[in-house]
């Protein structure tokens, strides 16, 4: 008993891809950013909850983390937004060569960040099994590191992809654009964490 079709419109003229909110990928990324953002927010809430359980923060005899590695990381990740913005723009304008070149730069930056992150773990002055302060500080850093790692992996794969013949496909530019969007989320999420790990224990 299927109703007979009554043709009212034709969609053939529609484009097959769109950037930003016109893209389904964008919505997917937004969804995952909400989820990840939720994780960060809740971990931060847990951080403050645990902080409220202690008289001093960090609890004695632990010293606040050393600043150098974390601050360097923050500077590099902030600076990485420059190439990131350029990539996003280049992708949206379909400039393949530029995208290819800058993706490699981003892969390099990611690598540098991961190395610095290694030093960060070493500069926390506390281990995760020492006390709840150590646990939550490590949790924040590990949580953020997984984001760096996954986005870096994504960048590596996508960077490789852009250097193949698939690179010319329009959809790949959307992927590059969304990857850049996600990177923004990654460094934006870092800023409060940087404050919580490195500065709050000094101010509190």
């Amino acid at each position: 008993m299927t109703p007979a079709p009554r043709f009212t419109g034709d969609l053939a003229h529609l484009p097959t891809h769109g950037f930003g909110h016109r893209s389904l990928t964008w919505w997917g990324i937004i969804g995952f950013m909400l989820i990840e953002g939720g994780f960060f927010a809740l971990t931060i809430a847990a951080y403050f909850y645990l902080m409220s359980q202690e008289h001093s923060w960090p609890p004695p005899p632990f010293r606040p983390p050393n600043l150098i590695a974390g601050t360097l990381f923050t500077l590099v990740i902030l600076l990485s937004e420059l190439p990131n913005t350029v990539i996003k723009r280049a992708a949206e304008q379909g400039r393949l060569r530029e995208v290819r070149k800058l993706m490699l730069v981003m892969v390099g930056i990611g690598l540098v960040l991961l190395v610095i992150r290694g030093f960060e773990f070493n500069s926390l002055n506390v281990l995760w099994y020492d006390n709840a302060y150590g646990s939550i500080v490590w949790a924040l850093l590990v949580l953020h590191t997984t984001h760096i790692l996954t986005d870096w992996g994504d960048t590596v794969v996508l960077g490789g992809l852009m250097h193949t013949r698939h690179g010319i496909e329009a959809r790949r530019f959307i992927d590059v654009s969304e990857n850049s969007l996600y990177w923004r989320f990654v460094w934006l999420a870092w800023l409060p964490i940087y404050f919580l790990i490195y500065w709050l224990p000094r101010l509190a």
Partner: protein
Amino acid sequence: MAQRWPKLVLLVAVGLVVAALVAFLIIRGTGERAAEAARTPYEQPALAKTAAGAGAHPAGQWYIPAGDYASTRFSDLADINTQNVGQLKPAFTFDTGYLKGHEAAPLVVGSTMYLVTPYPNVVYALDLTKPDRPVKWSFNPHPNPKSQGIACCDVVDRGMSYDNGRLFMVTLDGQVIALDANSGAQVWRTPVADISKGETVTMAPLVAAGKVLVGDSGGELGVRGSLKALDEGSGKVVWKAYSTGPDKDVLIGPNFHPYYPSDQGKDLGVKSWPGEAWKQGGGTIWGWISYDPELHMIYYGTSNPGPWDAEDRPGDDKWTAGIFARDIDTGQARWFYQTAPHDLYDHDAINEMILLDMPVNGTMRKVLVQPGRTGFMYVIDRVTGQVLSADPYASMTAYTGVDLKTGRIQHNPAEVPQSGRVTRGICPAAPGGKDWNPSAFSPRTGLLYVPHLNLCMDHVYTGANYISGTPFLGVESKMYAGPGGYRGEMTAWDPVRRKPAWQIRENLPLWSGALATAGDVVFYGTLDGWFKAVDARSGKLLWKYRTESGIVGQPISYRGPDGRQYIAIYSGVGGWVGGLVSGGFDPRDPTAGLGIFNAVPDLAKYTGRGGRLYVFALPR
């Protein structure tokens, strides 16, 4: 503009350099000034003096670990002085053959030196007249090996006493033995402790007025502490005073006149405990006893109450963690002052009490001074038991002060431990502002030389179970360096002005006793094996010598048969904190050793085990 920029750069550059220089000088300058201040001799108008009658001391000899009944550890030998101490050289050494904590003080009587080792408490008599100082005789009392597992914090022995041709020693398993000093023959042997109940003996007995005074150890095993007076000649127990229980057990009678109302009342040793908790209430006597021959009174402190978990024993827990004054003949208590009523942190009151006569608010008072484990320097009228002053000498968060009206210590509510939830940053930690290792007093400078600790801790109560002969604690604890990051400190305390004259920070906790000499030199040792001599007036380091192991002993000074002044010290790490190395424990467990090993996880880097006597003298 193009013309001006080099000038501008130059200006800025010069400015920066100047600023940096000034900043450097300021920083350096303050440091230097502080250091300079510490090196200037400390002057004071009115000096404290050793209590009249209690400072008597055989010339150039060392009969009891504290040197004299006033516990000054002062040697009136002045051959070694601030000028020449830098030339000190080892004169001879002697290996004891044991590798546990060597906390004892050597004794020198005539031309013989007497040594006692940690468990198995072997006694050696060294003939000082011969160049190689041979062993004249040795004596092994063969204590019960089981006692090793009951000794709380290493199997130490803090020394012997000599009187009237006899040496009086104790064994870990609780026997008091009198030896003939010439032959090493046993004269009598009296057991005073029962290891099946957790009782051991580590303290140095004190001989005075014909009595051998011995307490017990085991405050961590729920023993009921007591002080025994044995007849010097026969070894019979003359009197025995418990630290908990009914008045008749505690030897509280009509002559008992404590200064503060909270110590007045009948059978407080029972009533200030829940149920029968007093039977396992601790209050052992394992530290030092001072004696005032004029007043005929002894002074000693009682240890922490058992268990450590204070929630299991609501009340003041009399007569633990306090100072008793007793008549030496009858043992009857004269007064009592509780330094830590309802002790929360293992803050015993067993530390040495130095008997002084000194001006307090303009009048001369007969006082005793105790650098307490609570971190307060107590100045107490030794006639009445009134606390004249109590000033913090160590890092302190646990207490806010001592109320001189009621005598009660004031707790910081934020640092009261609880069950099930950690309380952090408690200073001083369980070993206190200072543990057992005794201070020295020099009547020449009027200063007290206090080797002490800078440790804080995390503490939590877990509930205790009492099984006879096993630990009775109910806590978990974790200690660490206090504010500043250093762990030990040598403080020269001016009891009259109630403030430090100078202080020396030590990386590791200080666990050795101190010695002051008439040459105005103060000796002490460190856990990394350095034996140090500092200027008694300024604290300036004059000399140091690296021994084979960490020093936890008590230095003494004597005049040898050759007429020279010698300084003797045991080297051999151990004791509670040093047990980490001597016992081969595992510092990966932060709660090990009641939490103290966490404060010195690096100790093995500084010292290995050892057991050797070092004797120093100036080159001939």
